[in-house]
């Protein structure tokens, strides 16, 4: 960070009067990203909660110019704007794309891959609330195994895509994961990303009280649990080198699951299966970290 703490940074990029549900993790994430990004900047929103949070015509919750694009084109929209600004001699103005898990893992994956391949000069922020929440809680490929949604009423049978490995395969200059439970880390990453040219990707897990069936005041606690249960590893990938930023406390994943209504139906063996998968993923990540060139872990 630039020496200032969260509280010392007075600028707000997300204004009061946004349209998020009470306790929305995504609104917190967007506030932190825009606060760190500063002004001038351009925001690209796509259909999903992030655009709705921006409010409706003629209002705007964004303190910088924003554009509501189409569902599957967050990345190329941001890229087109960034290229236009570059042509106009304003290439130093950051362009950030906000997309949910549907817009990133599913419908926008192709155009995200294309933009990453072209190393477009954009900051892409994936705000993952683990289902199509804006349309009323339907399963996406980011919905975790066994989770209840309106389209997986007896629990999702698929597994969550490893989006960071997909991003890693594109060898972009910068990628990171972040949590709203660690705002200083999140903002440090946004500032670091802002100062890098080329494609940058930040993934943020954003708990959703409406869709996760959790109390409105549980969002930050769930975010913290996600990190310490190893559900969300906090890491950075710089030029292909993976670096873990935080050592989880290794809390059993059941603590995280039992706090959410969407897992209310879980049987003991399903909970054990999730724990096994979390452990497997963590060990796989450690191995990837060791194998990555000059990989550093747990620093």
């Amino acid at each position, binding site marked *: 960070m630039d020496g200032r703490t969260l509280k010392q940074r007075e600028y707000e990029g997300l204004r009061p009067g946004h349209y998020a549900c009470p306790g929305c993790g995504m609104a917190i994430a967007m506030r932190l990203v825009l606060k760190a990004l500063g002004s001038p900047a351009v925001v690209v929103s796509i259909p999903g909660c992030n655009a709705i949070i921006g409010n409706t*015509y003629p209002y705007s919750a964004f303190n910088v110019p*924003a554009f509501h694009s189409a569902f599957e084109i967050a990345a190329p929209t941001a890229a087109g*704007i960034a*290229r*236009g600004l570059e*042509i106009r001699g304003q290439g130093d103005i950051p362009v950030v794309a906000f997309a949910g898990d549907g817009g990133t893992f599913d419908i926008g994956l*192709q*155009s995200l891959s294309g933009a990453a391949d072209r190393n477009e000069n954009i900051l892409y922020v994936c705000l993952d609330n683990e289902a199509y929440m804006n349309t009323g809680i339907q399963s996406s490929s980011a919905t975790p195994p066994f989770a209840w949604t309106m389209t997986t009423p007896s629990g999702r049978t698929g597994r969550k895509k490893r989006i960071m490995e997909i991003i890693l395969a594109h060898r972009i200059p910068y990628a990171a994961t972040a949590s709203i439970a660690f705002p200083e880390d999140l903002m440090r990453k946004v500032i670091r990303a802002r100062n890098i040219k080329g494609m940058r990707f930040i993934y943020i897990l954003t708990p959703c009280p409406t869709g996760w069936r959790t109390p409105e005041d549980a969002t930050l606690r769930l975010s913290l649990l996600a990190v310490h249960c190893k559900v969300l590893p906090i890491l950075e990938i710089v030029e292909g080198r993976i670096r873990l930023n935080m050592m989880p406390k290794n809390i059993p994943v059941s603590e995280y699951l039992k706090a959410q209504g969407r897992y209310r139906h879980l049987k003991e063996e399903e909970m054990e299966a999730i724990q096994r998968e979390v452990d497997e993923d963590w060990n796989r990540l450690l191995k990837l970290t060791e194998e990555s060139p000059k990989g550093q872990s747990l620093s």
Partner: protein
Amino acid sequence: MKELMTGNEAIAHGVRLSRVQLVAAYPITPQTPIYEKLSQWESEGKLGGVMVRVESEHTAMATCIAASLTGVRVFTASSSQGIALMHEMLHFASGNRVPIVMGCVNRALAVPWAFGSDQTDTLAQRDTGWIQFYCEDNQEALDTVIQAFRVSETVCFPSMVIIDGFYTSHFMEPVEIPPQEAVDEFLPPLPMPNRFDFSVPAFLSNVVGPLDYFRFRQRSFSDMAHSMEVIKRVDEEFGRTFGRSYGVLEGVHLEDAEAVLITSGAITGTARVAVEELRGEGFRMGLLKIRLFRPFPAKEVCRLLEGKRKVGVIDRNISIGQGGIFCQELKAALYPMATRPLVQNYIAGLGGLDVPVELIKEVARDLMGRDREEGPIWMAEP
């Protein structure tokens, strides 16, 4: 001084002369040579703008829309499946009132898979709010690209410059390349502002209520109607500068014509020959070329067809369940006339099937001997 070139090359020259700043493109037959030519010029430093080699036509249009919002001049080109894939973005472009110009090379839509010319790909986009020019030959294609930028940037609607796959896109013709200085004078740098105003941050293209939606659509409709005058004026001015103009319609021998054939695109060139031959045989045939499809020149069509007894519309396109699309539009345009001509629809040349002079003469003979209308007549062979 004329150069021999294909229709695709002619469009590429139009793009280069228009000093396009960004081209986002994706390959598809038969449009690909436009993309290749522009890439070649870019690598040789002869193209002022940048090429963005995207991963789909959908992204090509998305990139063009986004870049255009910042106030830079953009171009893309596509055909068939690519235009169909763009469909969502075409509405997006006109709704955002961005002055994109797209070269469209007509090609049959799958299935069955085919590669030849067929206008259904662009006509299926008629309700997207794009201006559509159907060009007859290579020179007209080059000139229309330059005109289209001027029109689009004046009225804030995107334009399609449309040619027939292979017949126009790949056949060589002598084409006059206008001097750069004259084009620069005709088409000054893009007068559009950057729509992202950092001093007054707004949320563009945002969700609106039903009344605002209604009013935005109403505004688009009336603005598109007003663009007709701009399109005519730009074409006339182009004519004064470069010595070539095309009109939104072109009538041939309409003064004394008893029956009139209506064509668009490359078939028009063949129809000109057929009409001359028929007149030589003693038949008073006329020809009406429709160059501008959106906005549709309804009043102009009525004026030119006033007093005509029979009209035959040749459509290289088909709306399954209705008929040829130019014919539908023409019939709707003629409805207010006190005395309407007989209008017979002929479907020809789908999938790139050749439409030779003899086939058009067959159409004309059928029309002249006809005393009542019937459903579309399918004309595959003379």
